[in-house]
């Protein structure tokens, strides 16, 4: 049976028909058209489908689309209203990623950390991104960029 859900995606209101068996990841990619949440393992292990759900990171592959009725989703597309965030700029400058498949999830996990903990330790950064698997970098270039973004603070870069 189809359900009609209303959810906000990156600040925009959507009314969508979904069937219960559709994951939130499928609904976001195929019906809303946001492609930054990636289809990786689809069992919650890899973190490449990470989104912000009512402000907190979750795995979009582990939620049903129908559950999102009345909720607010922010994807990578929705966090940088005026271009890239400081965090993203530092990641670009410091070559944090190679293939980039994990990047949307890593950026959102680090973004969530910096919201709660503006001056994290390296250990806190590692814990925050520990659920985002990256097979290219060995993570150091990511951790360095998060620490550098935290050092500069969100307002230092336009």
């Amino acid at each position, binding site marked *: *049976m189809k*359900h009609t859900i209303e959810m906000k995606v990156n600040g925009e209101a959507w009314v969508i028909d979904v*069937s*219960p*068996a*559709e*994951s939130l990841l*499928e609904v976001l990619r195929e019906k809303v058209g946001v492609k930054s949440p990636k289809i990786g393992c*689809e*069992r*919650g*292990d890899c*973190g490449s489908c*990470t989104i912000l*759900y009512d402000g*907190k*990171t*979750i*795995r979009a*592959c*582990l*939620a*049903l689309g*129908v*559950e999102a*009725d009345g909720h607010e989703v922010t994807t990578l597309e929705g966090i940088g209203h005026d271009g890239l965030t400081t965090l993203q700029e530092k990641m670009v400058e410091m070559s944090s990623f190679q293939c980039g498949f994990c990047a949307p*999830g890593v950026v959102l*996990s680090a973004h*969530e*950390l910096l919201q709660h903990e503006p001056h994290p330790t390296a250990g806190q950064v*590692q*814990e*925050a991104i*520990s*659920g*985002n*698997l990256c097979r290219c970098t060995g993570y150091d270039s990511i951790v360095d960029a998060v620490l550098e973004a935290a050092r500069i603070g969100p307002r230092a870069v336009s």
Partner: protein
Amino acid sequence: MTIAHDFAYLHPVTMPDALAMLSGHEGAMLLAGGTDLVPWLRDDAITPEVVIDIKDVPGLTGIEIDGGTLRIGALTTFSDLIASTAAHRAVPMLVEAAHTVASVGVRNRATLVGNVCSAVPSCDAGPALLAYEAVMDVIGPAGVRSIPILDWFLGPRRQALGKGEIVTSVSIPILERHGACYVKLSRYRGEDLAQVGVAVVALPGRQYRVAYGAVGPVPFRAPAIEAYLAGKDLDAETLAGLPTLIGAAISPIDDVRASKEYRTHMSRVMLERGLAAAAARLEGGGPPYGESVI
């Protein structure tokens, strides 16, 4: 991969409706965090005709201290638990265990109660709740009842919840003075299930509680080990007696995550370190909660 099996999604907003829906649909599954349920649906490991989302049923949230009891609502996520000062104060080792569950993006969604309702042998909440002697508060067609966690785990993915019943909260008797430690062995931090999990509570008078996860079909307390340790100093002579008792208590399997031999070896190493940390914490020392001892 899409979930191949179609099902109906029900979304009650009152407890009577939730109970009626559960009793009215044979084989219906409850959905809270969904971090186990959704992969099981995708794998066709379960094929319910009805999934009942209880996230908007009132009365299932909150972490409160009521007299000598900490009550944790069934919808409490591991992140909620980690953020709770009441939980840190009353059950620091449960919070320590919560920190080892997967990673932030899963802990923001996965619930403590869901973890023990799924009853996977390696569940991190199992040993911790066993060592704290928690009680599951349950509501069902016949009213409310309490199920001690010691009677909860019946087999892999099987627990004592009866037909038509819903867990409303977990109640934990607050220990006035204790030291404790949850030790988890996993291949890496973030996402992995436990290869071995050990929860230890040290009480004044050299009394110890010991619970294991991932080395048997269910998480379990180890009464023979506890009886052996009671009143003893944790010296080399005492520790020398542990391997035989551990060998008798655990029944580890070989699987993709670890061999039987490795699990057996680590069951001893982790118990020794967990005991040392719990005893030191009882005296106000030891590593801070959350710092891994392996």
